[in-house]
């Protein structure tokens, strides 16, 4: 069977909506096939996943805990990928943000400053840390033309070792050195109470805590939307993303744009890191099997791509994938081998990527002329 791919001339709106929906459905079917082949019942697996993600008591509470960091890393990736700056270092920027943000919390919180000030400083500190870490890759790309994909990824590993070092292998400011627990297993120093971020409780499903981080993620999405849709800066970034040649011809300063976009992307990822400390852990998580095993930075790429780099779509996808990750974690066991969530995410990403083609192209089967023998009834 041969086929050709032809460009379509029209672009109706319905196709922009229908193709991604069909792609996601196809992805779920294919992931179901993987489940079937490995001896699991796909329908009951999906049902259990959905229940554990959104329906059962306390599930939404847990889903928000996974969705909040995914929203940050998804927005971080979306901010950069929109300009075709492929920052895949959100993972490392998140670690660094948790370190710098926690420093402000421990230091100013410990001195008894008023809570809103401490939290504001933590937010700024986390953003600055993430932005600085991302700027290493950003500057190398802007000044040397070094592939930011590889450098930002390498920096993830370095940030991970730094995080482990600060809590496990040294007596740093971030490590709990006093008390009985500290002698049993190395842990991060607990934030003082005035540095702990507030959460608002919704009284359904047995109480859902909406963390401050979730609101900050929404604020970050609004900021990105305004920046990219309503400012000259955002317009230039989008032109650069669509056609670098055209942008240069129009006099857009490429180097500055790369630097700023990387810094913005890193700042959002860093904010995700400090939200991990302020909202959830209340200390820096240096355990190599803790935060570093969750891979929020990498899943953020899936979130951004599925949200087609639109900030509000990213929030929605982060919520859905947060549910999936939460369900995957809580169900993990014989029927739900670890890695299942990554498999489902990956397959959906593949089908959506493939579907992109169908938005702007038509696939036509080429009939091979029938031979006489086949034509006979």
């Amino acid at each position, binding site marked *: 069977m041969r086929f050709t791919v032809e460009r379509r001339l029209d672009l109706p709106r319905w196709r922009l909506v229908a193709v991604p929906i069909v792609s996601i459905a196809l992805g779920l079917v294919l992931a179901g096939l993987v489940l079937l082949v*490995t001896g699991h019942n796909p329908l009951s697996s999906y049902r259990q996943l959905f229940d554990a993600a959104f329906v059962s008591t306390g599930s939404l509470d847990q889903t928000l805990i996974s969705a909040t960091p995914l929203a940050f890393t998804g927005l971080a990736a979306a901010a950069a990928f929109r300009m075709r700056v*492929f920052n895949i270092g959100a993972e490392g920027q998140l670690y660094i943000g948790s370190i710098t943000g926690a420093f402000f919390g421990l230091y100013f919180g410990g001195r008894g400053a008023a809570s809103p000030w401490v939290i504001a400083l933590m937010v700024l500190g986390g953003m600055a840390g993430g932005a600085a870490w991302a700027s290493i890759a950003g500057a190398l790309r802007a000044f040397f033309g070094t592939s930011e994909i590889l450098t930002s990824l390498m920096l993830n590993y370095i940030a991970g070792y730094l995080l482990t070092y600060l809590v496990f292998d040294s007596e740093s400011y971030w490590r709990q050195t006093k008390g009985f627990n500290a002698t049993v297993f190395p842990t991060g120093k607990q934030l003082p109470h005035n540095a702990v971020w507030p959460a608002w409780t919704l009284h359904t499903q047995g109480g859902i805590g909406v963390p401050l981080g979730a609101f900050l993620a929404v604020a970050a999405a609004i900021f990105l939307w305004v920046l990219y849709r309503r400012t000259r800066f955002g317009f230039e970034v989008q032109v650069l993303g669509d056609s670098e040649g055209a942008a240069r011809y129009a006099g857009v300063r490429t180097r500055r744009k790369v630097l700023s976009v990387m810094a913005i992307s890193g700042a959002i990822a860093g904010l995700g890191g400090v939200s991990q400390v302020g909202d959830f852990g209340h200390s820096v998580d240096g355990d190599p099997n803790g935060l570093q095993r969750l891979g929020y930075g990498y899943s953020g790429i899936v979130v951004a791509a599925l949200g087609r780099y639109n900030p509000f779509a990213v929030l929605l996808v982060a919520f859905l994938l947060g549910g999936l990750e939460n369900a995957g974690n809580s169900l993990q066991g014989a029927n739900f081998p670890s*890695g299942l969530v990554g498999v489902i*995410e990956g397959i959906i990403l593949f089908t959506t990527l*493939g579907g992109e083609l169908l938005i702007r192209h038509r696939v036509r089967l080429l009939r091979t002329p029938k031979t006489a023998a086949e034509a006979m009834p």
Partner: protein
Amino acid sequence: MNNSLIVVLIASGVTYGTPILFGALGELLAERSGVLNLGVEGMMLVGAAMGFWAEQRIHIGSGALSLILGLAVAAFSGTVMAAIHAFLVVSLRASQIVSGLALTIFAGGLGLSSYLGTDLNIAGVPATHTFHAFFPNTMQNWPIVGPIVFGQNPLVYFSWLCVIAVAYYLARTRPGLNVRAVGEAPGAADAMGISVAKYRYIHTLVGGAFAGIAGATFALAITPTWNSGDSLVQGAGWIAIALVIFSFWRAELCLVGAYLFGAAQALQPELQARNISLGPTDLWANSLPYAATVIVLAAVSWRGASRRLGAPAALGVAYVREDA
């Protein structure tokens, strides 16, 4: 003398560098045909899990045969992973960068490789057979060349054959020259009657096979066990992609670079074994291979050197006949 730090580092540099070399050779072939595949890390992890599984669970008599079977299964699973990428970027013209990242996320430590390994229940046990040094002990004890050349596992020698084969293929054979044409000027290659899609498919798939073998090198020779997550490979796939850039898309230079990075990876365990510490030793020694990658990448990309020195001109660009 054979226990001096420098000899041990070179010898383990060769051992640790071998999977990076396999990965880089595969990526080199794919990139020479114009396909950037960022999924190496994921393909390696799936190769490691499936190769380890086949070696452990399929009994076919001797240990050597089961190791070869493990290697073959690893290569095949790497090929299957690469086929997804090839279909998306060659047939469906998807973004090579996003598709490659998707492949690493799908296949990687939080995805298929962990899923398969956990489901097949192969975690945490040592391999029944491993690739190990086979030259007589007296030869392995020869000064300097003993540990470096004769103390290696068979996969190291196999990788040398692969380097020669890839270098010869690209420089001296008709299909090898065709691949380079496809990577440099797909339009011209198409006009000559070379099928761009066919060449890109084949080389992406072969690249996947190499990545699968690289994964099996970890699971059956270097750390002969399997664990869920990415602890087995730890970014070697990404270093392999970077290595293709440092080696200016040449197989023979991949060899040198791979051993340098292998030695950088060997430094931390070696310092630990000798109780040598210089400041925060684990921190800098563990970070060294990654930091070195960043620094070398920056150095070779200075003023677009890599483009002058051999990046295929059509790397990363989908070929559409109507646009050529």
